């Protein structure tokens, strides 16, 4: 049989070769011409899961745990893979409506995109943080059918002892600006917002770990990537030993309850803060878990300002407490001797200026002037200091005074390990020029001599003055962290070992200290508030307040020799320093020096505990 179409076989050969060539060229361009595919493939199949470290546990100075952690569970989502069929179920479990769900979902997509910008492996994003136990259980049980969702543990704070809220601070979700500046953080991460939680954030946060897993298209884990460069365990934050004595702290909080004010107690020779109290304050337990945001917002608008850290941000005229410093400056400048006296006839008068004083007998020396808190004495002393013939110029004289004041850590932050500390105000010559015109005289600013006017100090600075008096001439910046385990060298360690000496010679202190020890004696301003077996040195203060009743102030340290505690107490609108501030300070000193023993002044203690001044 003749085959007429034999030559047609070549058409087939040609067709095969054409197809072969087209395919080879196309595949060659995919495999050899474009390098991005391998990266895309790797990104597809790997997922980096963040392992959250436990945050530092915070201990008090005696080794009691104040703050530790507990596990919280966050719900993560692979937005691409979530099946909308599960939306109603998730809404009912999380007790939210569909609109809220969609908002969360959109947020998660944005987070996921943001995360992928940094690292393409990060496909998942936080969807809902802080599941309740019930939510956790229900979701966990149904996880197998909730495609695209998974749960990861993280830790949140748990307060073993409620106390020291303003010192310790609280956590919150990392802000947008922090996320922008520090790539370590991811949306939803908890970071220290205030207190030592904020100041020592870099140490306390620990180090996040990374787990890289193979993940198939359904986001099912298919095992760990066996390459050590992809996996790092999380490292817990090291233990933080705070300087607080939590028992003292709690007692101070108790004494201040129902009042508005601050207490700062310092161990003088180390600068360690023993108690750090503001009232009103907040319960740190309100700022954890699911209610964090809600409670925080209500605290922000609370007229009582529970978040306000008076001890470092509140500024008050120091009132008579400043007389201790002024006496020292007078002695240092040689304006007075310990035995120098100024007369007082019920007040200081100069032209139209009248500074009242309470009745007391005879001219007083330095010790007496402190015991009695004689206003005339200090108005005269103040004027003599700045009108010192040695300088022959009021401005030079004042600058000299200002220099001495500033050496006490006044007018600038003390350097405590809290952010946002105010430096108070010590008026400069320039400030006085602006206020009183270029040609002012000492008589125009005499109220500074009794701690009124432009001079403003924080409670912390007042406590620091008490510490300087206790140390007879130096201070170490007050601080709230004693030690972070394993940290041997850091700026803050060096900073909190440095002694700052005042411009006052040590010899001058004994006179003033003697005066302070006599305030509890009959006729002294704090008579009746002292503690029998403890030699306390104190100074009352009553700060005039344009907005209402005077503030009650007291600074003290004890014992007189080899002091263990220095303290400042301020009770807003508490009236005389002896009314509230002195009793509270003394009760705290007693509690600290005689731990575990009942107070010898039970009536005073009860009165302080039950007084309510806050309206």
């Amino acid at each position, binding site marked *: 049989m003749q085959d*007429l179409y034999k030559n047609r076989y070549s058409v087939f050969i040609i067709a095969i070769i054409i197809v072969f060539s087209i395919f080879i060229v196309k595949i060659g361009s995919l495999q050899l011409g474009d390098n991005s595919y391998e990266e895309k493939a790797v990104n597809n199949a790997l997922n980096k899961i963040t392992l959250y470290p436990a945050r530092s546990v915070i201990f008090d100075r005696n080794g009691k745990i104040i703050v530790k952690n507990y596990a919280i569970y966050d719900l993560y989502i692979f937005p691409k893979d979530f099946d909308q069929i599960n939306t109603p179920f998730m809404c009912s479990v999380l007790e939210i409506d569909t609109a809220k769900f969609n908002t969360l979902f959109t947020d998660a997509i944005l987070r996921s995109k943001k995360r992928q910008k940094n690292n393409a492996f990060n496909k998942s994003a936080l969807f809902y943080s802080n599941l309740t136990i019930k939510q956790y259980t229900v979701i966990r049980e149904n996880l197998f059918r909730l495609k695209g969702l998974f749960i990861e543990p993280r830790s949140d704070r748990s307060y073993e002892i409620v106390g020291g809220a303003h010192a310790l601070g609280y956590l919150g979700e990392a802000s947008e600006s922090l996320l922008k500046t520090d790539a370590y953080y991811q949306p939803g991460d908890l970071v220290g917002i205030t207190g030592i939680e904020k100041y020592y954030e870099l140490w306390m946060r620990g180090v996040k770990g990374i787990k890289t897993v193979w993940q198939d298209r359904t986001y099912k884990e*298919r095992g760990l990537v066996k390459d050590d460069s992809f996996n790092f365990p999380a490292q817990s934050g090291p233990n933080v030993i705070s300087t607080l004595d939590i028992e003292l702290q709690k007692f101070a909080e108790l004494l201040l309850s129902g009042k508005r004010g601050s207490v700062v107690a310092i161990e003088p020779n180390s600068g360690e803060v023993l108690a750090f109290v503001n009232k009103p304050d907040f319960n740190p337990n309100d700022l954890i878990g699911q209610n964090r945001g809600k409670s925080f917002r209500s605290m922000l608008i609370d007229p009582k300002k529970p978040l306000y850290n008076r001890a470092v941000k509140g500024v008050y005229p120091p009132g008579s407490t400043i007389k201790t410093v002024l006496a020292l400056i007078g002695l240092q400048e040689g304006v007075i001797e310990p035995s120098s006296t100024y007369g007082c006839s019920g007040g200081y008068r100069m032209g139209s200026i009248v500074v009242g004083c309470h009745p007391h007998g005879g001219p007083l020396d330095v010790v007496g002037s402190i015991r009695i808190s004689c206003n005339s004495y200090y108005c005269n002393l103040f004027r003599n200091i700045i009108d010192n013939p040695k300088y022959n110029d009021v401005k030079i004289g004042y600058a000299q005074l200002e220099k001495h004041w500033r050496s006490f850590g006044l007018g600038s932050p003390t350097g405590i390990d809290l952010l946002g500390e105010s430096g108070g105000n010590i008026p400069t010559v320039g400030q006085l020029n602006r206020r009183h015109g270029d040609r002012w005289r000492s008589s125009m600013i005499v109220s500074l001599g009794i701690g009124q006017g432009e001079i403003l100090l924080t409670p912390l600075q007042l406590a620091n003055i008490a510490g300087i008096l206790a140390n007879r001439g130096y201070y170490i910046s007050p601080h709230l962290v004693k030690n972070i385990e394993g940290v041997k060298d850091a700026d803050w360690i060096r900073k909190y070992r440095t002694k700052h000496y005042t411009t006052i010679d040590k010899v001058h202190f004994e006179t003033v200290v003697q005066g302070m020890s006599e305030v509890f004696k009959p006729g002294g301003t704090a008579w009746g508030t002292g503690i029998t077996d403890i030699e306390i040195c104190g100074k009352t203060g009553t700060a005039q307040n344009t907005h209402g009743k005077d503030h009650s102030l007291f600074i003290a340290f004890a014992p007189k020799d080899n002091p263990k505690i220095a303290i400042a107490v301020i009770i807003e609108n508490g009236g005389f320093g002896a009314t509230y501030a002195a009793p509270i300070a003394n009760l705290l000193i007693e509690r600290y020096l005689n731990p575990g023993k009942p107070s010898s002044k039970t009536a005073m203690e009860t009165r302080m505990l039950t007084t309510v001044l806050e309206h």
Partner: protein
Amino acid sequence: MKKNSLRSSSGNNIDFWAFILYVFLLTIGFLNIYSVTSDVNQSTFHLSQIASRQLIWICGAGLIILTIIFANVVIIDYFSYYFYGLIIILNIAVLFLGHEVAGAKSWFGFGGFGIQPSEFAKVATAMALAKFLGTYGIKFRGWKNISIALAIFLFPMIIILIQNDTGSALVYLSFFLVVYREGMPGYFLIAAIWLGILGIISIIFQSYNISLGYLHGLFLGLGSILVYFSRKNRQIFLLVLIISIGSSLFSGVVGWAYGKLFKNYQKDRIEIVLGLKEDKRGMGYNLEQSKIAIGAGGLSGRGFTKGTQTKMGFVPEQHTDFIFCTIGEEWGFLGVFVFFSAFVSLMIRLIYLAERQSDSYGRVLGYSACCILFFHFFINIGMTIGLIPVIGIPLPFVSFGGSSLWGFTLLLFTFLRYDQIRKN
């Protein structure tokens, strides 16, 4: 052929090169199925369930080969129509008795295994067509003979279309190539290609919502002018008339059918491949992932069992229709080249063997085997690299699956056996 190979009672050998290439492709298939179904961190040899099943299918294929080789040769030729009839009946029966897999009602289930009769319909059709065209005195000439020949392969195609297995049905178009070798006029092919182009243009118009009236206008207008100039020559006149009216009608029908009959997902697939639609998440996701897999292979591949793209499920149907992605990802360009060369060599070898047949039966059988393999190769590889729409058909000898492996084995070895006993 003097090479030693499977020696049978008749004295000649089964073609050595075709056999070796077959074994080679089967091995590639098994290795890639093994790889794609293994675990990521798996270090020791472990057969997945899928790989073990493929091993069983391969053993079954071995049995089929032995049966064919030791069968009485006359049977092949003699039983062609009966076999065809039986397979047609099975394919109709599956419409009523079978169950659905991936939307196609084309499977008989036996316990855990399934058999797809349509995979065997190809070999049956090839044998029936060979039998008919090999009958003494029958030529691909005259309406009657042409109609019978076309009916032999269009009938099973329609049944399989009814089974909703579009991919398998399209394979029967490859018989047009076979009958072209047997004398179908060349303009049939040219007309087919023209209609293909016209179809695509109509779809583009349709998906951009451009009125098909422009196309009608173009064809009829151009047609009228040409008709006017060719009015003297009756033959050309008629031809131009038919082409212009036919083209216009065809584009109208395609446009209408595309709008009304095609399902949305089918439209999506077509439009994505035609570049009318960008969609990296939905339908286009599979194609994108498939390209990533192949592209990730680079020159020398990511290594055996190291292809994350395929084994992690990013590429769909990674052990069946998209098995080529694994070759591309794990063996790279070099592997692809070797694989293509083997496949192309087998096809060209089949043409060579078909051409040396002394009768139409053997030649038609050989060309059928070659053209079916070619069509599968073209569609399967073409879809994985995005040159043609995603049409689910297996890559012969390589994709996982018993029915297709046995069907292709039967087709190939029926021909090789026939070739073995050819009269020189």
